[in-house]
């Protein structure tokens, strides 16, 4: 379980995240929605312990991320929005490196790498340097690296950016299969993705949690019965 309690993050006078509270249980696929600069990435960075909150806490299966960082992070697979790959490494070297720093036992490492390569169809590029890959392949390498240790929590920031339509379909399929016993947090601007994948939507605007509901409910909040309109109306209403 993830419990986010009174979470705040200030940058100078600006409140990037303002008193956010929610809890997530296994089996949930949650979509973090919000306009640019709403605080989604800051929120995800605090959940992953990359930045410390100004106040409040994040607990991962009962452990505080600030106090038991390593135990918490061993259960998280995180794909940040912007390039976090080592361009000088080959895909195989990078995946092996990810497996080793996550302490995957040697006997399982190759099996896990092979599995991740199969899921994201990276067979043709395993020996290539990451810098020579297309944007879509880079994204797939990132996703493959995040699931290597079979984490209970998957946090993905704009995961389908750069993927072609075929890969998007496969990604959705993967999320559906993977989410059965896991917690998945996806930050995205693509509403079709929210409708197709999420069980729950957390809408953030100006750092505040403004809606915590299901995509279906969000869709029917306004007479237009459209999730895009709902998003537009809610985020502008708050402003």
């Amino acid at each position: 379980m993830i419990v986010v309690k009174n979470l705040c993050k200030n940058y100078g006078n600006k409140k990037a995240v303002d008193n956010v509270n929610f809890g997530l249980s296994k089996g949930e696929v949650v979509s973090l929605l919000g306009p640019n600069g709403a605080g989604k990435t800051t929120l995800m960075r605090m959940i992953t312990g990359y930045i410390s909150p100004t106040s409040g806490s994040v607990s991962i299966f009962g452990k505080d991320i600030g106090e038991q960082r390593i135990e918490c992070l061993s259960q998280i697979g995180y794909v940040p929005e912007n390039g976090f790959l080592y361009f000088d490494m080959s895909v195989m070297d990078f995946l092996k490196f990810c497996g080793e720093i996550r302490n995957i036992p040697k006997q399982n490492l190759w099996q896990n790498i092979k599995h991740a390569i199969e899921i994201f169809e990276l067979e043709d590029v395993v020996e290539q340097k990451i810098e020579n890959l297309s944007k879509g392949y880079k994204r797939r390498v990132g996703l493959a690296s995040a699931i290597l240790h079979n984490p209970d929590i998957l946090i993905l920031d704009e995961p389908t950016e750069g993927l072609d339509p075929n890969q998007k379909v496969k990604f959705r399929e993967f999320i559906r299969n993977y989410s059965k016993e896991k917690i998945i947090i996806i930050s995205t601007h693509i509403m079709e993705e929210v409708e197709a994948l999420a069980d729950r939507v957390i809408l953030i605007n100006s750092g505040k949690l403004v809606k915590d509901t299901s995509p279906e409910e969000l869709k029917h909040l306004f007479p237009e019965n459209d999730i895009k309109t709902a998003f537009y109306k809610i985020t502008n209403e708050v402003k």
Partner: protein
Amino acid sequence: MRQLYALIQKENLIFFSGWGLLLLGASYIVLSMFLNFFIGGFFVLDNKNLYSYFSFQNVVFILIIPAITMRSWAEERKFGTIEFLLTQPISLAKLVMAKYLSCCSSVAFLLFLSFPLWIYCNVYYQTDNLNIISSYIGCFLMGAAFCAIGSAISAICTSSAIAYISTSTILFILSFMDFSKILYNLKLQQATYSRLQNSLNLDYHFYDFITGQISFDNFAYFILLSCLGIWLTIRILEYKKG
């Protein structure tokens, strides 16, 4: 241990895969040999302890080591890979140690490049090999301390160029600063004054090594300096998280 080894391997793979290592090795050899032959008077001195070579290593390291350490954290920050590293189930101390040890392995590689000179001297001169070994130890310890300081500065910077310039400046000050002027104002007794002055001076400890006078305080000085650099790097990274 496995995590630490994987991190060191990654650092070395990235560093050794491009032209970086070749350029660094070439720069080190050209600079060291230039100072050794043209300024140090290699053929003039009685070179039984390779003094003409080792006596300029502090200057060479001030110019070369910042090029090794500048990329440690500054480039991770610049390319966004720091977010990946800091969200892995690995302690900050291990991350910092891995980068530090990787830099130290580059220093060891640079020193290894000078081995042919040692072999040459053994063939043509009566060398004091124990003194030469002591000089190598001194050079390595000084290089390791420089790596720790460079790593801390790299953790503050987002630009490799700024990290290079800042590290070189700080290492220069640390190596050549005359502590006597600061200590004089403290109105200490003469014995304490000179002892403190010597203890703080980096060059004083380094020259003890290259003249074959290894003592505990020389080892302690460089090890403490390394520890200080590593500790500062951890603190800076923790501070930047907040």
